């Protein structure tokens, strides 16, 4: 076990994947000498060369579109979008091409691309640097979506994303980049076993309420579980947002009878809606209270001095817990 930040864990994961397969190439803005604005690719251009770590022009559609061509040529491009909100210029290529290419080619073309991007708020950034676009991608058939919540999960999920034969949107919770945690660098893709990144992880078992979160909110929920007085929260980290590991969620809620879903993204038609709808449908007879969603509001992400008022926090999670316990 080694202690490291999440940013470092992703860097190590990239390194392992690049060592293992010379077709893995990194492509994105400022990822070379600068190492990316969050330094996630730090040192990789130096170690793997300019042909493996390529700085891209300032055009996201161009990055995703050319990465498709690279993938068709047999490469495994891992692209970096500098911040989540800058993925929108590439939305067309992602939705109309990346997500559909395998299908329309009747399985002959595979696009093993990873689209990495920092997401979420909480770092006091300016506009367009704190969004949570996951629902757009989860709603898009043909994509997979992964998001780590701690260094160990990051180290493994990034490798799994790269190994996957399907295109993966890889969302990095930027406020957790500097969180430290233990990473077992010897865990390899082959021996992850139950650590499969496509499965949800029960981060803390509990009997009273299932708290379902992912990415940046997992730590918040773990803190809430710690702080909760007389209520045993079971905290689930989804890890994979598409496909959702509903089996783990449903099994948990059937035990607890109560569910709270937590995410930063706006509420309406957010991912929480899907999870809540699924729980309500599948746990119809075991649910003891309406599922609660603790989310960002249906407003544009506010200026940073107000972001704490927008983001779910420990208090809001506990208030929702109180509410499900009341019923």
């Amino acid at each position, binding site marked *: 076990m080694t202690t490291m930040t999440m940013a470092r864990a992703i860097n190590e994961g990239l390194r392992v994947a690049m060592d293992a397969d010379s077709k893995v190439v990194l492509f994105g803005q400022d990822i070379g000498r600068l190492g990316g604005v969050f330094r996630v690719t730090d040192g990789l251009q130096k170690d793997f060369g300019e042909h493996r770590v390529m700085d891209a022009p300032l055009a996201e559609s161009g990055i995703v579109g050319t990465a*498709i061509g690279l993938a068709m040529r047999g490469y495994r491009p891992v692209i970096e979008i500098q911040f989540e909100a800058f993925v929108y210029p590439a939305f067309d290529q992602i939705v109309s091409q990346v997500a559909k290419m395998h299908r329309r080619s009747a399985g002959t073309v595979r696009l093993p691309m990873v689209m990495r991007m920092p997401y979420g708020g909480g770092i006091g950034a300016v506009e367009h640097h704190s969004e949570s676009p996951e629902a757009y991608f989860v709603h898009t058939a043909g994509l997979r979506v992964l998001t780590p919540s701690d260094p160990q999960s990051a180290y493994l999920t990034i490798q799994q994303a790269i190994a*996957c034969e399907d295109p993966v949107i890889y969302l990095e919770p930027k406020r957790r980049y500097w969180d430290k945690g233990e990473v077992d660098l010897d865990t390899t893709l082959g021996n992850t076993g139950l650590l499969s990144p496509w499965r949800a992880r029960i981060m803390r078992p509990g009997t009273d309420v299932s708290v379902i979160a992912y990415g940046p909110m997992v730590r918040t929920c773990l803190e809430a579980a710690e702080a909760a007085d007389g209520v045993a929260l079971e905290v689930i980290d989804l890890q994979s947002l598409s496909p959702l590991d509903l089996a783990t969620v449903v099994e948990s809620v059937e035990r607890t009878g109560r569910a709270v879903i937590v995410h930063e993204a706006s509420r309406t038609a957010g991912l929480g809606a899907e999870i809540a709808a699924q729980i309500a449908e599948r746990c119809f007879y075991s649910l003891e209270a309406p599922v609660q969603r603790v989310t960002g509001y249906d407003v544009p992400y506010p200026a940073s001095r107000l972001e704490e008022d927008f983001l779910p926090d420990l208090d809001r999670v506990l208030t929702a817990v109180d509410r499900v316990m009341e019923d």
Partner: protein
Amino acid sequence: MTAETDPVQLLTPEGQRVAHPDYDIDLSPGEMRDLYRRMVMLRRLDVEATALQRQGELGIWASCLGQEAAQVGSAAALRPSDFAFPTYRDHGVALTRGVQPLQILELYRGLTNGGWDPLEKRCGLYTIVIGNQVLHGVGYAMGQSLDGTDDATITYFGDGATAQGDVNEGFVFASVFTAPVVFFCQNNQWAISQPRERQSAVPIHQRATGFGFPGAFVDGNDVLAVMAVTRAALERARSGNGATLIEAYTYRMGAHTTSDDPTRYRMGDEVERWRLRDPIERLKVYLAREGIADRTYFDTIDREADDMAVTLREGVRRLPVPEAVSIFDHVYAEEHSLLHAQRAEFEEYHAGFVDQGVR
């Protein structure tokens, strides 16, 4: 960039071979006959498909009538190991890359969104979202150069597409990475109802130099000139000098698609004027005059086209409709549990109908 206004021409509309200071081509009689044959077969495919659409056998058809020289001439300049990224109208490109006519019709019959294995044919699937494939072509070409080959990529698009961000980003990436790519723009004068002037205030080939690579302007109805100019651009790409933008000046003789009614926006005499510049006639006259092909040869080709037409008409009706449940196939290379569950639910639901004898 020279401000030339005359497109490169090696064959006049009257079928006269002319010289050009920068471009020439030296084809064997066999190669020239082959170009003719490809264009005739293409036109027949186009005519048949249009008819099949009218008969309800195809959902829609995008005709390439009038653009045969541009498509065949450019695609014939490729090596097998090169790669082409066509649009929905580039049937001449697909055919020249070895795609079977029926595979092309599959898409328009609504049986698939693809039709062939792009990696096997080294020919991308038809791309409908205007401009998307230009970036794919540039990326593929970047891969070719990373691989250290001297293969090249050609990517097709229309005059309308030049307005799209993706196409211009393709120019940027190609020039920054010196990608071995040829941008082949068929300026057929129209983007549905919009004339070229609504997409670019100046001729399209002039766009290139501002991005850092040369533009070429070629008579798109002159198959020899198209082939010569494309070859030169491919050579440039192969030798590590990067991209070229070719504007092939041509004309969309038909409607935009079978759903379109061009009488609402353009004059019939415009079409008539372009009929005099027919790309096939032009080559035919030349071949005949030079004794490269004679009546017997032309008749053979016509018969071959007739045969293909029959095969097409019969074949298209026999193309199997995929099983309903195939809508779940190939969504992912590694199908995941949720989709698997939906597939199972779907099968169960339809089995219910079968039990009831409904389906």
